[in-house]
């Protein structure tokens, strides 16, 4: 922990950031370092259960999240969450356990401890847009992303469901646009910002993902975007890893690099390609970044 940090958070990276989304983890840590925001990873955090757990066993899902919230409670500061799915699960758990006493009692029995619901769970976007603030974020920019047209993709879980207090208007969110415009990029209005990519069907029913993700790529391309920005490893996987395959199936050519928000903000803040994990991206972003004089 560096003493000149201006803010401190406990950090819940989630499983993907330790595996397929390593570049999200790397760029987050590097970006927050230069923004002087401290991140203390919650020791021995567990998987939040993600979609499969609540899909078939809500009690297990709530218990896993409650256990993580208990672990987070031992560290000073609000909880910073990178993955949209983890974020949604942790927030939903707080909501359900506050509203429903029967479920809260069951969960307390399952984790053998009183549930701790006081932690403020925040997605990285909220930390950048609200806690740090767009002005301070803009002040950290070394290399404005001038001329880069970004399609901000929210997917499902950043803003939903509507009764759980999440980070922005459920139907017309602007937080991603506000963050990336603050570092100099241009955003494009497009129609599929909130449509589902097929999420974890990528394992069981990839055909579904290919169809849904194609519609999203098609819409971003049609809107004139150079690239897509996401805040969720699962969306990223579908848009980036499966992009070549989709191009093959639909006989088209998108060539849309898919960045994590911390990669683009980090780029503007002056981080180099090695600290952003750009080499981990399947759709090579280098030609685009060179064309725009950003690398």
């Amino acid at each position, binding site marked *: 922990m560096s003493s000149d940090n201006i803010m401190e958070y406990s950090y819940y990276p989630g499983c993907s950031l330790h595996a397929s989304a390593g570049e999200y983890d790397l760029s987050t840590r590097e970006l927050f370092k230069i923004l002087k925001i401290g991140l203390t990873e919650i020791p021995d955090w567990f998987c939040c259960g993600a979609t499969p757990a609540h899909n078939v066993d809500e009690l297990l899902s709530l218990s896993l999240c409650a256990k993580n919230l208990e672990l987070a409670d031992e560290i000073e500061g609000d909880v910073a969450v990178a993955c949209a799915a983890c974020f949604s699960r942790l927030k939903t758990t707080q909501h359900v356990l506050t509203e429903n006493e029967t479920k809260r009692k069951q969960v307390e029995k399952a984790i053998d401890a009183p549930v701790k619901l006081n932690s403020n769970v925040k997605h990285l976007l909220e930390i950048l847009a609200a806690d740090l603030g767009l002005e301070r974020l803009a002040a950290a920019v070394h290399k404005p992303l001038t001329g880069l047209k970004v399609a901000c993709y929210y997917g499902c879980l950043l803003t939903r469901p*509507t009764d759980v207090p999440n980070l922005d*208007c*459920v*139907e*017309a969110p602007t937080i991603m646009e506000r963050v990336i415009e603050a570092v100099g990029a241009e955003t494009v209005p497009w*129609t599929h910002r909130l449509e589902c990519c097929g999420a974890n069907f990528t394992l069981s029913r990839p055909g579904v993902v290919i169809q849904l993700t194609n519609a999203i790529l098609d819409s971003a391309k049609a809107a004139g975007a150079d690239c897509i920005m996401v805040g969720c490893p699962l969306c990223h996987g579908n848009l980036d890893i499966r992009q070549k395959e989709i191009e093959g199936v639909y006989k088209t050519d998108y060539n849309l690099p898919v960045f994590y928000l911390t990669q683009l903000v980090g780029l503007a803040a002056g981080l180099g390609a090695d600290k952003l994990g750009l080499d981990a991206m399947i759709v090579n972003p280098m030609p685009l970044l060179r064309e725009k004089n950003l690398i």
Partner: protein
Amino acid sequence: MSRIGVFICHCGENISRTVDVERVAAQIGKLPGVAFSTDYKYMCSDPGQNLLKKAIQEQKLSHVVVAACSPRMHEKTFRKAVEAAGLNPFLCEMANIREHCSWVHENKEEATVKAIEIVGMMVERVKKNRVLPSITVPITKRSLVIGGGIAGIQAALDIADCGHEVILVEREPSIGGHMAQLSETFPTLDCSQCIMTPKMVDVANHPKIKLYTYSEIELVEGYIGNFQVTIKKRARSVDEDKCTGCGVCMTKCPQKKIPNKFDMNIGMRTAIYVPFPQAVPNTPVIDRDNCTKFKTGKCGVCQKVCGPGAVDFEQEDQLIVEAVGAIVVATGFDLYSIAEKPKGSPIKGYGEFGHGKIPDVIDGMTFERLASASGPTGGKILRPSDGKEPKQIVFIQCIGSRAREKGISYCSKVCCMYTAKHTMLYHHKVHDGQAYVFFMDARTPGKSYDEFWRRSIEEEEAVYIRGMVSRLYQKGDKIVVMGSDIAVGVQVEIEADMVVLATAIQPQKGADSLAQKLGISYDKYHFYSEAHAKLRPVECATAGIYLAGACQGPKDIPETVSQASAAAAKVMTLFSKDQLEREPIVARVREAGCVGCFACKKVCAYGAVEEKEIRDRQGNLIKVVAYVNPGVCGGCGTCQATCPSKSVELDGYTDEQIVAMIEAL
């Protein structure tokens, strides 16, 4: 010494089955002060009442107790009988030995003992009853009608035609309301303007109607028969007496690009304007927010060109006080909008439909203006964005209505019918176009209504799709409609040129603050509440105030007109007498004891407590005490319970009477 008569009723077997009525009569007859005690099978019947009257006269009774059912049932009956026999009606009390005793007990012995106690209590109470003179209040036979839409116009004309003066107050520069905006009306498709404007002219020409337009209610004081209403007449900047309505000012005004609210902001108007050509009064008004003269001091063209010199930039708002005896509230409705709502609002917008930012997604009233021959497009259906004629048009019902998630659970009642009408108007005007309607249920009860809806499908070729729409978005110059057809069980996608939303009916903005001025109640949506949903549907719980039209709940034109005439009939019933008689159960202040703390004034729900100055002969102020206006007092007794110095008493329910009852136990 009192000579009390006690009359015990069997109520058929309702009471006598569980109460030994003869024993009660015998027992009560022994009480001091009771001169006569008897029982009878049906005390409320004609022979029963005659028995009571005869006893009063023969036994020279001073007070009467009838032991029977609830006073809610027959108190009036017996007090009337007592009055007919020459006693003051308030010297008669009822002892409830049916609902409070025989109906709720099974053991006859115990029930009989309880009945004796109940009657005994009332005997002690009635000894303390005083003669209460009936209260009369004068009636000012003029009425106020608030709102100049079809409801207010109808009510005003009906009352005025009976010869009573009417003050009609309208917030906008012209009367006419929403009905004047409509193109054609269901289920007969007659032109709204054609049936509306003659009525507007009748109002203007009626000798008994005094019209205040561009005016609002500022303050309401008083009570039934005697209201004082302060009206704020906003400065029109045009002298109504001098103006001839020639319209030269409007043709010369250089500010020509101001969106006209009457045309749902599609058409444009000048800064000095009448909202529409058939306006009543046909006197322009200057919109000071948009007038160059008011903004910069330069211009004044209208004043220069006005022949009669009617334009008056110096005119100021005026406060006018009118005395009226009855008030009809007819403030109408407003349309829900899908725009984003401020944080914390109980009502939400439709982000999934673009929050109103897609230009060719319009609401039903905008479509009315497009379809209206006198509208901004001359009756042509054209898209607001590029003026093209839409060939694929989608109507979506239940927008905001029946949507708990958006904060409105009720059905707006008129949308099914007007949407069917819109499909017909569209079909009549765009022969090669196709109309689609997304709907859940078609609610068409009403004379010739369902036939009308069926006609839109069977003859006018509208395609109705049973299912709702999840999302609307702009794609090129089309609007993608993502819907579903639940009968087939598939998703439906339509690329539409224009989308018309049947948005919910809400009460007029500011309905709540007007209600607070009037002292009437409203529901959580701010629709005004009627006194009884079935039996008093046009009266407010507050005496002397009546409701007409959509301010009480969503309504179509026929229903609004019926309710307006009903409200007018209620006003005429009130005006049919010269004085209003009311029950003398009112609170009275003992001025000697009153310390002027006005705790009673704070708790009075009727606003009946006033401040009264007590002065000596030289006119020096001694103290200020509370005074209860008997015309306004509701007789609830809250002031009596609140008064710290025990200086207020409710006639008929004095502390003395209640204590006597308790002591009798």
